[in-house]
């Protein structure tokens, strides 16, 4: 049972990590916690669902179009809502993301209805691989793999590309970055676009694992946030580690202590980490701006 709980924990932790990565990308550049992340991912997943179910678009093309939509959605939100905010504080921007979240939730209910749907996905969520008695479903396996690859690509992007460096510079000091010739407004839009795209990946995988309905991202978003806090909100590898750890801790707690309080573990971790190590496990330092 222990081995199976750990494997299942890793699988669900990969989903948390994907959402955490999406949140971290934005946090790294703007210090804004995007509470609309889950609903942005949900809307992108519904778009993918419509393409697959209503227009019978092949899956590969559906992914391409969905990414395109997610990019546009992220840029739209940044341009239309956040950029228009007058003398915005970080708290003000976070409140705007909460408002956008509610708008998207209402829109999804109106457009696609409240009924649960099955998300068509090329990998089965029932068929499983059996590694010496440890069972992992094919979709869980692919989720872990996708998370690792995505995290690695993003890590390389932030570390070694000019654009990634510009994004980090914008986060550290927007004025200095502008003086150095970085078009910070454009960088911010680009950040939201990438984050929205990563969220869309998370949304499609989570829908394929369970069901597609408007509130499907509420729980994963909170867990993703907890993963970010655990691993470090400015560290991409940290969020991946945080997600995996959270998934495993939750499963072990549910398996050996109490199922009723399994979900509460994530929130206990948030409180504990903020008290003991606010920067998270893998973030190198915690910069407090004044």
């Amino acid at each position, binding site marked *: *049972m222990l081995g*199976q*709980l750990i494997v*299942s*924990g890793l*699988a*669900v932790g990969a989903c948390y990590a994907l959402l955490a990565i999406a949140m971290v990308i934005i946090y790294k550049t703007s210090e804004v916690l995007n509470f609309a992340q889950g609903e942005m991912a949900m809307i992108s997943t519904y778009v993918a669902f419509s393409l697959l179910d209503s227009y019978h678009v092949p899956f590969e093309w559906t992914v391409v179009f969905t990414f395109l939509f997610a990019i546009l959605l992220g840029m739209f939100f940044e341009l239309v809502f956040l950029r228009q905010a007058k003398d915005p504080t970080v708290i003000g921007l976070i409140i705007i993301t909460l408002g956008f979240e509610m708008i998207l*939730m*209402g829109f999804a*209910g109106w457009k696609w*209805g*409240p*009924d*649960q*749907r*099955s998300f068509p996905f090329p990998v089965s*969520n*029932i068929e*499983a691989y059996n590694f010496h008695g440890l*069972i992992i*479903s094919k979709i869980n396996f692919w989720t872990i793999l996708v998370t690792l690859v995505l995290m690695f690509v993003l890590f390389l992007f932030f570390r070694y590309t000019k654009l990634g460096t510009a994004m980090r510079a914008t986060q550290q000091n927007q004025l200095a970055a502008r003086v150095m010739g970085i078009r910070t407004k454009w960088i911010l839009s680009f950040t939201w676009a990438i984050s929205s795209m990563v969220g869309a990946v998370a949304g499609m995988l*989570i829908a394929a*694992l*369970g*069901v597609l*309905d*408007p*509130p*499907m991202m*509420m*729980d*994963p978003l909170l867990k993703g946030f907890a993963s970010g806090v655990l691993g470090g909100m400015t560290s991409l590898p940290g969020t991946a580690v945080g997600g995996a750890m959270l*998934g495993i801790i*939750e*499963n072990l707690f*549910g*398996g050996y202590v109490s*199922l*009723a309080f*399994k*979900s509460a573990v994530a929130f206990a971790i948030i409180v504990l980490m903020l008290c003991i190590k606010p920067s998270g496990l893998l973030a190198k330092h915690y910069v407090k701006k004044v």
Partner: protein
Amino acid sequence: MHQAKWTLSETLCEKGLTYPLTLALSPVGRGQGWGKNLRKEEDKKMLKRTLVSLSLLLVAIFLMSAPGSAQQRGVTDTEILIGQWGPQTGPAAPWGAVARGTDLLVKIINEEGGINGRKFKYFLRDDSYQPAKTKAIAKEFVEQVGDRDPRGVFAVVGGVGVACGMTARDYLMENKVPWCGPVTGVYEWITPIQKYLFAIYPLYDDEAFNLTGYLYEKLGYKKIAMFYQNDDYGKQGVMGVERYLLKKKISLVAKISAEVTDRDLSTHALKLKNSGAEAVIMWAMPTHGALILAETAKIGFKPQWATSNTLSDSALMIQITKGLWSGMINSNFGELPDSNHPLMVKYREAHKRLAPQERWGVFYYAGIIFAEPFFEGVRRAGKNLTPETWISAMETLKNWQGIGPPITYSKPKTPMDRQGGKHVFYGKVKPDGTIQKLTDWIQITK
């Protein structure tokens, strides 16, 4: 001025409230200083005249007013106002279809000319499954809706959610608003007995008790586990299952709960598998139903599943579980979606015509099931519709049946006299999502 004050206070004591009129007409009020005897005689005459005038005025007002029913909240000569809340947005939104189903029945009845010469005006409000909103909606229903005084609805029909309904129950009862068919099968609607509240939904406790009996006695499953939602709905299911097993001197091999917001049920599935259960009874919401079946299938655990009528929308369930719902045994509180029952045929035709955008699913036509007895009560109450006449009419329903279970009410001596639906039938889900009927209507509540 001083004299006028004295006269007023004296008269209020001696002659009651009629005096102010007299005061206005009497010279005493103007303080002209006539003799005391003369004044008393004048006063008496004036009082007599005033009383006669007032009586005539009262009779005139009484005669000029519309018939008595116009004074009744939510009822006019031509209209009856009714309301229902239901989650149209938020996590519980799929159950919001119930309130829209009632809307279809209202349209059908209005198309047929209404009942006793009155048509129905239906107010549907979205409470998002949030009790605080439900309470506000209940207040709106009682105090604000409608465009003439006294404002408010005549009755509330349906209403999804235990917690939501509980925030409104006492308020509706205090205001003597009839409430027919809350859309949950819990004891809270009938205990303590409420004069104005008529429950229809079969009780979860009794439903679970009998479903366990069906698995244990008819199908021979002795090792039974339970997967349930950790709230009143799930707990009353557990209560019934354990009550039955206690009778047989055995207990559940596993009792696994899930929180409403949980989306990862892998641990739950593992615990169910390790229990060695032959059959698992599920008292959960559709999303959890789909998730637990997928998780158990992944780890190769395939018991006989059985579930409550809240998951009897098998067309939806077979679709979201990618076929895993096949073989599920469930209880049902209404005719099957493709039933040839004459009323079902009529409602399906009306649905195509009046609400083609809606899916003809169990949750949708449950809105008809929980409203039909209300309208029958209105029909039997006749032209003089008041809460009291409606209650008397409802208490004459004996095994009355629409497309739901047979309904019986009596004068309330025990809580069960206000529990209308006491029957369910069992079915088994086929691979195409249709249900094969296993039994006829079975009485589950004595």
